[in-house]
Structures are given as structure tokens and as C-alpha cells.
């Protein structure tokens, strides 16, 4: 009989402690403090890891919990995870989303509106979709891809032996991605202004270093006398540099990229790369989380914002040999204390 009583007590105790754990384990459900959340593609990308780092610094500053969701390049998963997060927090959440595909933005916007959750996004959305048509979509921001592509191209041309005259090969990212298209346009504009510069061949390396390496080696056989390589992001640029090394052209033929990963800074310092455009992922995360949180806390009246404050672009940080040391010091080795008092301080132009 005693055994049975002991057993019963143990059972009740177990159930109670489980309940307690459950209650403690999900504070957001009970408490008032909102949760911050980021939806990004993958933590295997050093660039996207900056979202997490920046987001964590911001969360620490404001004393709120942060959740990071990864889509792993799967749009369905991305949307499902967002919905799950909303459910888990009971809608008491503010989001920064970097959509996996431009078209995902529509589904996400509808979900957020239905759930009454404020969010801000970066990079990809369909051009014909307007942020102001959705009540809870605070803003869609992008770095000026055109400006980036232009800067990269100009810096590359500067490195030619014969000024303003030479051949280049180019590596595009995933052909459907918005940033890719914008940077490509920037390159085309510069090519148009410089008739002495010829783009002899381009391929898509899908943002991947190994693909870039393989393709560059093949293109170098087709065009052994190339003067420069334009790569739509730094990972691909690094792959191209390795290929150039094996063709004994590294340093003589320069590469440009975009994103601002640590390796490219070393490459610029070492003379293998000419320039990059530093997309400050940390700032992206902080700005968007701040926007979403401000809207949620009533400090920002979304519906009263003019259209050009709902979707806009801000400039990225252009990096070349001249300023690379400073950039590395300020932005990579440290996380700057961003001034987020005026959320639109860096506003550069409206998104077309």
C-alpha cells in the first residue's frame, strides 16, 4: 500500500514539475515583453550570420529575447516557421525577414496582416507588389544594388593596365534573385559608358564558391587574356581568385565582389581583389527589428508614413584598397553602436 502511495506522489510531482517547466520555458506566452525574430536563409552563409550577430546585439540592448529562423532555401519551410513562431508567441512578436524568394514576400505579408504582426524586410520582393498595400508591413529596404554594381565595375576598370580598355568576364549569382539583377544592371551601365571595356563572357555560378572556381577555370581557357573578373558576390569572387591563382594570374588580374565577407578584405589588402561593397548585415537586422518594434509599441504610425518611406534604399559601404583597414576595424572587428534614434537617417532614395 505504501508503495502505491509513493508511486502516486511521484506521479503528481512529475506532472507538476513538467507543468512548471513548460510555464517557465515559454515566457513570451505569459509575459508582456515581445519577442524579436529574424527569418533568414541559412546560417552557413557568413553574410547572413551577420544578421544574427547584429540582431543579438540589438536584443541585448533592448532586453528582449531573439529567435532566429532559417528557411534553408525552402520557401514553404520559411513560411511554416514564421507561422509557428507567431503561434508560439501568441502574436507578440516583431519580425525582420529576408525572404528566400521574391514571391515569398506576398504570402508572408498576408500572414503578418492576418496575425497583426509588424515586420520589416530586406532585399527581395516582386517589383509590382507595394508595401503600403499591407497594413503591418512596415518597410521593405534594400541596399542600392545598382550603385553597388556600378561601384564594383568602376573600381575594376581602374585596375586595367591600359586605362579604360580591357576585357572582363563576369559571374552572376542565382539568375532570379533581385540583388543579382540590380548589380548586373549597374555593371551594364558602366559598360555602356566605357566602350573600350568588353564583357567577353558571363556565366551563373549561383552564389557558390566551388561553381565559381570551376567556371572561372573554364572561362580562363576560353579567354586567357582577360583583364578583370566581376563577381556578383564575394564567395564567388574568392572562388575566382583561386582559379586565377592556378592560372598564375592572381594579383595581375583583379576581382571584385559584393557583400563584404572577412576573406575579401584580406584579399583587397593583399592585392588580389580590387573592391567590394560592404553590406552591413548587422545594421540591416538592427534597423529592421527597430522599425518593427517601434511600430508594435505604437511609437511609429505605419499608416501615416509616406510611400517613399515604406520601400526605399540605403547606400552600402563601398570598400577598396584605400579604406579597407578602417572598415575592417569599425565594422568587422567591432559592432558599431548604430544610431537608431532616427530610423530613416540613412534614407537614400525610394525604391522604384
Amino acid at each position: 500500500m505504501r508503495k502505491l502511495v509513493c508511486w502516486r506522489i511521484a506521479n503528481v510531482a512529475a506532472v507538476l514539475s513538467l507543468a512548471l517547466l513548460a510555464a517557465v520555458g515559454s515566457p513570451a506566452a505569459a509575459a508582456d515583453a515581445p519577442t524579436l525574430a529574424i527569418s533568414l536563409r541559412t546560417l552557413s552563409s557568413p553574410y547572413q550570420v551577420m544578421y544574427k550577430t547584429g540582431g543579438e546585439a540589438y536584443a541585448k540592448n533592448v532586453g528582449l529575447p531573439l529567435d532566429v529562423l532559417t528557411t534553408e532555401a525552402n520557401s514553404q519551410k520559411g513560411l511554416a516557421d514564421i507561422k509557428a513562431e507567431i503561434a508560439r508567441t501568441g502574436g507578440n512578436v516583431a519580425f525582420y525577414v529576408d525572404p528566400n524568394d521574391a514571391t515569398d514576400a506576398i504570402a508572408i505579408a498576408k500572414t503578418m496582416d492576418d496575425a497583426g504582426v509588424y515586420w520589416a524586410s530586406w532585399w527581395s520582393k516582386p517589383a509590382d507588389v507595394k508595401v503600403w498595400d499591407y497594413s503591418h508591413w512596415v518597410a521593405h529596404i534594400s541596399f542600392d544594388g545598382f550603385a553597388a554594381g556600378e561601384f564594383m565595375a568602376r573600381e575594376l576598370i581602374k585596375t586595367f593596365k591600359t586605362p579604360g580598355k580591357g576585357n572582363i568576364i563576369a559571374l552572376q549569382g542565382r539568375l532570379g534573385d533581385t540583388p543579382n539583377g540590380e548589380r548586373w544592371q549597374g555593371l551594364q551601365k558602366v559598360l555602356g559608358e566605357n566602350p573600350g571595356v568588353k564583357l567577353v563572357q558571363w556565366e551563373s555560378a549561383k552564389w557558390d564558391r566551388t561553381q565559381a572556381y570551376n567556371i572561372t577555370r573554364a572561362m580562363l581557357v576560353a579567354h586567357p587574356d582577360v583583364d578583370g573578373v566581376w563577381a556578383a558576390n564575394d564567395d564567388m569572387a574568392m572562388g575566382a581568385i583561386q582559379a586565377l591563382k592556378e592560372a598564375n594570374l592572381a594579383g595581375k588580374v583583379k576581382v571584385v565582389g559584393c557583400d563584404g565577407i572577412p576573406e575579401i578584405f584580406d584579399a583587397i589588402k593583399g592585392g588580389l581583389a580590387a573592391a567590394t561593397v560592404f553590406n552591413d548585415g548587422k545594421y540591416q537586422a538592427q534597423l529592421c527589428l527597430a522599425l518593427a518594434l517601434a511600430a508594435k509599441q505604437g511609437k511609429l504610425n505605419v499608416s501615416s508614413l509616406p510611400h517613399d518611406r515604406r520601400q526605399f534604399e540605403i547606400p552600402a559601404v563601398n570598400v577598396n584598397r584605400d579604406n579597407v583597414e578602417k572598415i575592417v576595424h569599425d565594422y568587422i572587428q567591432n559592432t558599431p553602436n548604430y544610431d537608431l534614434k532616427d530610423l530613416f537617417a540613412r534614407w537614400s532614395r525610394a525604391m522604384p
Partner: protein
Amino acid sequence: MTRDRLDRTSTAVPWPRLLAGVDAVQRRVRRAGIHGQLVSLVVVVALFALGTGGRYLAWPNVRVILSLAAIPTIIAVGMHPVVVLGGMDLSVEGVVALCVVFVGLLTRNNMNQNDVGLWIVPVTLGIGGAAGLVSGTCNAKLRIPSFIVTLGMSWVLWGLAVFVSQGQTLALLDTRFHPVVTGSVGGIPNLALLAVALTIAVQVLQDRSQLGRYLYAIGGDEVLARQAGVPVDRVKIIVFTTAGLLYGLSALLLSTRLGGAQAITGNNLLFPAVTAVAVGGVALTGGIGGAKNAALGALIVTALNDGLILMHVNPYAQDAVNGAVLVVAVALTIDRKKLGFIK
């Protein structure tokens, strides 16, 4: 027709012997099961040679093809015995991701103080082999279909790789490996020589060892093989483990070549490997095809892609071409009788 020629010309003695020799070689090639693949390779090369005005066949390009085909060959040589068994190994991307990350973290790098040097070789082989061992055991003993086990393994290892590396890229600073990987002997890239050596070794094992016999028996009819006394489970585990070993090796080679270690280094390795195996004539239904098939398949696929670039084929179309090649290759090699109804 041959006889005609012989009759008309007054036959010099070497002719009949030469023709007989050519005939014997042809028979051997046909029996070796690579007849179709060699013809395809010749056709591909000829097409591109014509299309690029001969530049395709110039030594610099051939060198590039050999160099770029080496790692896919090693992967295909590792993967194909699983296909011969009648299964499928989808784990290469995850295994390579994890091995690459460990290469980055353990050899001299820019993030920590580790420097295991040459010990990285057994370590990377060990990780790959261990992954294969687990996959093989789950497939053989727990009877989980290989398709599922290896797919799951790939995701698990991939997640682990991302977690361990924190998404960072590690620069590889140990300079001892680089010249080995990028160097050449007599103009032929080291990697190509390594790939050829591995292919020959595996092929000899397949032709002339008891293990090789068992491999093809299981692929032909697993039930009958088991009845005849073949140690089916043991063979399966060995096959998966060797695949993992070779994936681990390719991880080391790949990251050394790129100078950096990232979890995503493993991406986009699976599709070319499966295509190589299928194009090479290793039937997905099992029991047919050896290392030479896998190697030839990898060479054909690499040669094809290189040619597409050299001929400025629209990059939008290149993926479509690769996809079509895979479907055609599988259609030509599967044994429909074995599949009964094609699902």
C-alpha cells in the same frame, strides 16, 4: 566489305593480323561494357572540337577538363557500388560539408590555434567512413531503404556542419597540401592521376576479388545471393563505408583547392555525381557497371559542361541540358524487366 578490300589489294601480311587485333580489342571493349560510353565521349569531344575551332582539344583546355573531372570522379567511384547493389547514396553533400568543416577547424586556420597537419587525412577519412558505416548499418540491419537513410544522413551532417562552423568560412593556412592538390606531374594534374589510380584500384577489386563477386551477385538478385551464402549485410556495410571514405577524401581535396572551408562547400555535388554514375552506364536497377563506368561518366559530364561554357551556350540553358542528359542516361540503362511497372 573488309574481305573485298583484302581481295582487291594484294594483301601485305600485316593486314589480317592488324584487323584481327582491332576486332579483338573491340570485342573486349564491348564485353567491358564501356562501348557506349566511349562512343558518347568521342561524339561529345568531336562536337565541341568542331564548335570551338579546335580550341576544345588544345592542351590548356584538356588540362582543365582533367583537373575539374577528378573530384567528381572520386565521388562517383565512391557512390556507384551502392547503386550496383541496387540502392542509392544521397549523402555526399552532408558528408563533405562536415568533413570540410573539420578540415577547416583542425588544420592551421585563421580562427583557432589548432594545427593537426597531416593527421587531417585519417581524420577526414574517418569521419566520412564513420558516416558511411552508420548509413550502411541502418540500411543492412534495420532494413531502412538506402534512399531514405542517406538523405537523412545528409541533412543531419549538414546541420551539424553549420552548427559546428557557426556559418563561418575558415581560411586554410597549412600550405603543405596546396601544391599537392594543384600541382601536376608531366603536365597532368595530380588530382587526375589520383582519380585514375583510385578508379583502377576499385575496378580491379570489383573484377578480381570475392567481395567484387558478392557485390554483383547482390545487385543481380539479393534473395538468391543470400540463399547462395553471400554475406549480404557485411558487403552492404563495407560498400557504404568505402563511399563515405571517398567522400571524406574529396572533402579534403576540394577545400584545399578552394583555400577555404565552409559548410556550403558540399553543395551541388550530388547531382553531377548521380549524373556521372548514370551516364557512365551504371544501371540504377543494380548489378551492372563498375568503377571505369563511373569514371567515364564523370569525364563525359565534365567535358560536356566545359564545352558548353567554351561555346558560350546560354547559361539559362545549361541546367536544362544537364537535366536532359540525366534522364536520357537513365532511360538507356535501366533494366525495365527488373522494375516491373515503372513508377
